[in-house]
């Protein structure tokens, strides 16, 4: 087990290194000096002395690898730089918006489980039936429809044609819990349905695998009802591989949040990132890219380790 954990950790460290280089390189792809270009509005660029001062301030005169190491060491110490757009500390901006996006993800995960697990289970139990075909075709639909279009259709149907939900907007939970939840229903549903398809597929294949095993035959042979065989014996082990889906769907949920938060005007991380992308606010973009990837990496690492504990066969392979 110690060997398994250390190999996983080594891989994770290598990935983090590649990630850091990549994120740094992306910010430098912008033609000319990204920082100077972004500051052109606020600083007198015709004055060479001012330009020189800004260059020195941001370390743009140093060799590129020094710039990289400096940026990295500051980032690790929690100094994520100052937003070019707002002049605010990037870390503060990030932490302020994090709860909003996490709330969105929490509701989205609930939708995803509420739809994906029953769909996958039914599909597995009625394997090769018409219902199975319809449900599995439905999961393809889930990955084919752009989330931003699904959002617009739902807004049209449930906020404009039938005004049940607010078309957009966000109310902080502490201000008005009821309005907060009502405003979150549509956006989280859109995000949730998108990962529900993937979840349903995993649950289906996993249940099919489990249901063919000896202990299920034993459970049936000793006279348990089909209902308790499925719910008590088959579903529990079948849900273990489903942990993987959460590792996978975090990334796509975050990408989805970019669109959903724009469309529903939710002041979360997604909207902050899109704004940053348009303003070429690279300290903010770099922080988001790293935070997002680290998050996925950690979730995947946790999933890997959990697997190692739950299933001894994994440790050897």
């Amino acid at each position, binding site marked *: 087990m110690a060997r398994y954990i250390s190999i996983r950790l080594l891989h994770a460290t290598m*990935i983090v290194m590649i990630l850091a280089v990549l994120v740094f390189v*992306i910010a430098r792809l912008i033609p000319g000096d990204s920082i100077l270009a972004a500051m052109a509005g606020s600083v007198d660029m015709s004055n060479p002395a001012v330009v020189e001062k800004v260059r020195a301030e941001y370390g743009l005169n140093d060799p590129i690898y020094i710039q990289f190491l400096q940026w990295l060491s500051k980032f690790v110490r929690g100094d994520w730089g100052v937003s070019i757009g707002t002049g605010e500390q990037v870390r503060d901006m990030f932490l302020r918006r994090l709860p909003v996006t996490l709330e969105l993800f929490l509701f989205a995960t609930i939708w995803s489980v509420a739809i994906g697990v029953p769909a996958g289970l039914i599909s597995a139990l009625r394997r090769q039936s018409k219902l*199975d075909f319809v449900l599995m075709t439905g999961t393809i639909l889930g990955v*084919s429809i*752009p989330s931003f279009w699904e959002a*617009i259709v739902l807004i049209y149907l449930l906020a404009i044609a039938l005004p049940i939900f607010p078309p957009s907007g966000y109310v902080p939970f502490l201000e008005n819990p009821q309005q907060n939840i009502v405003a979150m229903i549509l956006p989280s549903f859109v995000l949730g349905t998108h990962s529900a398809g993937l979840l349903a*597929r995993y649950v289906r294949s996993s249940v099919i695998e489990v249901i063919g095993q000896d202990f299920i035959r034993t459970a049936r042979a000793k006279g348990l009802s089909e209902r308790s065989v499925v719910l008590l014996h088959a579903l529990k082990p079948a849900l273990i591989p489903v942990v993987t889906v959460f590792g996978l769907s975090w990334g796509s949920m975050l990408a989805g949040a970019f669109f959903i938060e724009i469309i529903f005007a939710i002041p979360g991380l997604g909207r902050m990132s899109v704004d940053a992308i348009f303003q070429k606010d690279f300290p903010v973009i770099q922080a988001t890219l790293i935070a997002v990837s680290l998050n996925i990496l950690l979730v995947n690492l946790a999933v890997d380790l959990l697997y190692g504990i739950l299933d001894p066969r994994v440790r050897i392979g």
Partner: protein
Amino acid sequence: MATIEIVSRQRIPSGSTITLLASSVRRNRLASVGLVIIVSLSLLALLAPLISPFDPYDQDLYAVLSGPTWQHWLGTDNLGRDLLARLLYGARVSLMTGLLCTLFAAMIGIPIGLIAGYIGGVMDSVLMRITDAFLCFPPLIFILAMSAALGPGLKNVILSFAVFGWTGFARIVRGQVLLVRELPFIEAARATGVPKFRIMWRHVIPNTLAPIIVAVSITVGVAILVESGVSFLGLGVQPPTASWGKELRVGFTYLEVVPLFSLAPGVMISLTVLGFNFFGDGLRDALDPRLKGFDR
């Protein structure tokens, strides 16, 4: 964005790849439906200049946001341009971008998978670790950041997609190569002294084609989604060029007045991506029934 994963336990096809594919498509309902959608949309895109009722750039400022009429079947946009014409021309942009993105991603991914699988050893470990690293990054977010850094425009979307979208190809090809390389005819080629690269090109690649075609189909779908997403946010296609994602975004502003303006482009995107996903998924099931409905 869907991850592409073809489990490579697939049996080695006998007969030519094309015969195998044709019979697979015939056998699978989903794949046939997908193919019909893809072919019809491609025809519409190709014939757009001939069948389009209007020029997609002609503005009629007396008929702005008209909604469906006998003259403009789907209505007009905020500048009085015919929506149907813009959707037909948008098909060209979407399909072209989808194909180019996939082409470049395949050009990076296939050689990497081939080298990792065929040469093996340290080379394999290093290349696969790099692939794992890229799989950790949510592609859409990185593509957005990179197209933002490089500036708006389709060329940069395609470039960014290639940089972050090749991992699926690398993994599929590697898996398939690991299967093929131990077969007797490859051994025979090695024994008779055929050079390594010639073996890869002439003997290994042709035997990995079927799963590659499945991956191509699914990747085109993903690329079209990414392009429409990037254009929706305003970084992809620049005006006045028609693109489904762009139309959707502009149409969203007028959702209460003319819902078709944003709903119709979404139908086109969904239908196209659905076509490619049906084709890819169906083909994979038909090539290996054991994987039916397995994780994608």
